[in-house]
């Protein structure tokens, strides 16, 4: 048996270490280990609740708008306020633009180098050698797109800034709505940028994803995972925020179920936190680090839904929402272009490395197309926020979907200050260690069974991990 340590696990956000045992050419056991603790939840205590929407964005510089969204929804809930229509739409547009940035960045800059050989210069070397299957011409096309996508993702951030103020880290989302009053100029400036991005998604990103997938078809069978899926829902479509572009719900042990946030618990038996804090709902959650804990192997807690590991991210959202896919999907499957193909029509293939990558690209188009309609629903000059007063006491939660999975913030307020603030971040679901019952986290489960042809160049291991966009 060979033990592989992949540390650092690069091309992700944050610090992750992967440990796998390989026997007979396959992974037989896996551990996913978070290797950084900063203590945001501890730092948030006793601060002005409104500051949470700024401070929590700095949990993740790749998806700050996700934390901004969860946080302002959490504060809205605790303050018992609702943003006006303009505020809701502007939040969706800021967040949507960052989603497009994140998905494009993920495919081209975080995962593509596992399938495509970059130029023979740093930072593209050193690299794993062996399993690159594209012919030199196609390989070059994708490398050129890597560079083009750098510019496209930068332009996505210009879109974020139109209503968000700047990116990364936005100032335009606040409790009660958004800060800008939309003007005709701003709407136009957003819309023309979106045109260019949509063109790139439709005519470059999506076809390239299917092109690469075609060369690595066996990877539709690798990295299955726990097959329990969760989505908190994202992009509210009505002012009561009850319906979402990407729906809330779960797919648990083969059954579709409505979402019940009361069923979320965090376990810490194998995480570096005090055992007394295990099994708590986040509204009562606690963060007590214990760096010397013997059983601990990760700084990530193990959130479970209905006591089971659940995967979050585009695969989960697309499976739960089950929308119609792009014409590129028809072409890939060799199905008549006029026939509607929905995500679940892809079947079990979706539970795989490539299933996640295809889900992300298709979702990117779905969101970009929806944004093109939302931008015209803004009412120039109409208010975008409501007055905010911090209550003396209160409790609330805010749920959303980060590009990489289900994200929730929970707050309790005492004497106008934060008494407890708990964050269940998206990657915490996927990259979690074992829970108290010994159930492996979603990435750990997806790794078990993964074929490893060459232990010096364990392509499939890193491909599985990166397919989750941790």
């Amino acid at each position: 048996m060979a033990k592989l340590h992949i540390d650092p696990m690069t091309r992700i956000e944050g610090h992750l270490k992967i440990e796998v045992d390989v026997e007979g050419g396959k992974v037989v056991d896996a551990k996913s280990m978070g290797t950084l603790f900063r203590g945001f939840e501890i730092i948030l205590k006793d601060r002005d609740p409104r500051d949470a929407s700024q401070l929590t964005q700095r949990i993740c510089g790749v998806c700050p708008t996700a934390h901004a969204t969860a946080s302002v929804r959490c504060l809205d809930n605790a303050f018992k306020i609702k943003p006006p229509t303009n505020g809701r739409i502007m939040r969706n547009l800021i967040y949507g633009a960052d989603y497009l940035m994140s998905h494009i960045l993920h495919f081209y800059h975080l995962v593509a180098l596992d399938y495509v050989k970059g130029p023979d210069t740093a930072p593209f070397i050193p690299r794993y050698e062996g399993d690159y299957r594209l012919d030199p011409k196609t390989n070059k096309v994708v490398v050129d797109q890597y560079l083009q996508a750098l510019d496209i993702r930068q332009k996505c951030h210009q879109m974020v800034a139109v209503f968000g103020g700047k990116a990364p880290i936005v100032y335009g989302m606040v409790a009660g709505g958004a800060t800008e009053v939309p003007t005709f100029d701003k709407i136009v400036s957003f819309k023309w940028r979106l045109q260019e991005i949509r063109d790139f998604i439709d005519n470059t990103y999506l076809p390239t994803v299917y092109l690469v997938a075609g060369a690595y078809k066996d990877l539709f069978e690798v990295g299955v995972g726990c097959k329990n899926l969760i989505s908190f829902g994202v992009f509210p479509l009505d002012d009561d925020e009850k319906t979402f572009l990407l729906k809330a719900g779960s797919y648990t042990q083969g059954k579709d179920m409505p979402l019940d946030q009361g069923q979320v618990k965090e376990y810490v038996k194998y995480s570096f936190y005090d055992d007394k804090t295990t099994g708590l709902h986040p509204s009562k959650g606690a963060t007590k680090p214990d760096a010397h804990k013997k059983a601990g192997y990760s700084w990530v807690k193990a959130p479970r839904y209905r006591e089971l590991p659940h995967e979050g991210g585009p695969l989960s959202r697309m499976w739960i929402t089950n929308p119609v896919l792009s014409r590129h999907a028809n072409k890939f499957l060799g199905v008549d272009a006029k026939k509607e193909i929905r995500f679940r029509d892809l079947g079990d293939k979706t539970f795989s490395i490539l299933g996640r990558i295809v889900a992300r690209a298709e979702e990117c188009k779905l969101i970009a197309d929806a944004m093109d309609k939302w931008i015209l629903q803004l009412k120039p000059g109409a208010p975008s926020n409501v007055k905010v007063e911090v209550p003396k006491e209160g409790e609330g939660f805010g749920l959303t979907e980060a590009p990489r999975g289900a994200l929730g913030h929970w707050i309790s307020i005492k004497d106008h200050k934060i008494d407890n603030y708990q964050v269940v971040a998206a990657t915490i679901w996927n990259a979690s260690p074992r829970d108290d019952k010994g159930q492996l986290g979603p990435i750990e489960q997806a790794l078990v069974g993964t074929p490893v042809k060459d232990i010096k160049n364990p392509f499939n291991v890193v491909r599985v991990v990166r397919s989750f966009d941790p």
Partner: protein
Amino acid sequence: MPISRRQFLKYCAGTGIAIGASGTLLPEIVEALEKAVAGNPPVAWIQGGGCTGCSVSLLNTVHPSIAEVLLKIISLKYHPTVMAASGEKAGDYLYDMAEKNKGKYFLAVEGTVVTGMDGKFCTPGKFKGKELTFIKLMVDMGTNAAAVLALGQCGAYGGIPAGKPNPTDSKGVMDFFKDHGIKTPVINIPGCPPHPDWIVGTIAHVLMFGVPELDSDGRPKLFYSTNVHDNCPYRSYYDANKFAKSFGDEGCRIELGCKGPESFADCWKRGWNKNVNWCIHNSLCFGCTQPGFPDKFSPLYTKIETAGREVA
């Protein structure tokens, strides 16, 4: 055509041809830079207690584009978010590079130096067969670097992780080097995150002319010497006592909690994201380039005491 240091400073400060209008560095600088750095000096970018936001901000550089930076200006030998390699292949490459280029490579540090619990809060990887703490990595890489760029609030001053009660004993690079007697020059590039022009512009200065002149907070004067409030386009509202009472109102943002009077940076003329927008136009300045952020400016959405000070 080579450009002089004087011209360069002028370009960066935007006093000559207005750099601020485009939110980019001028083509002249980029061209001179590409020529000056023939041989692409090695840069290693390491990450401690951070969020990757500084890296994402750097990716937003417009001119030079990030592709130009990576392929024509520097040789990025190590960057956890960008590099192809994983695991020991990546870690060993870093140590080999540092050995080969002793005293010649540049080190960029993103995130805090997490010093609590003997470094157990942050273990960035396995290098030459050993799992290291970020403390050890900083000592090894910092000691032999030509200069260190301490990026963002975190790298410069400790940032949010060092916010009260600083549960991980997080520190900025300068403080950490002082504790360990490391003499390598450090340039702070604060901001949460810093503007990409501040990062690329500082790198350009270092490569062409050496370490730029720094202020008492260790920041390059060419980007951080102007007061945001004194130069704010909304300043005339302030002088006319016209104050925004809620977001979206016309008027100076002081009453809403703007920290412009305490902040030094050139956002007011540079703008963000190719000058599409900037903080105060959108809402407020939170003082993210200043030592002490966020505690010094908390609560963020509350008027600061110094707001009424007389300014030149």
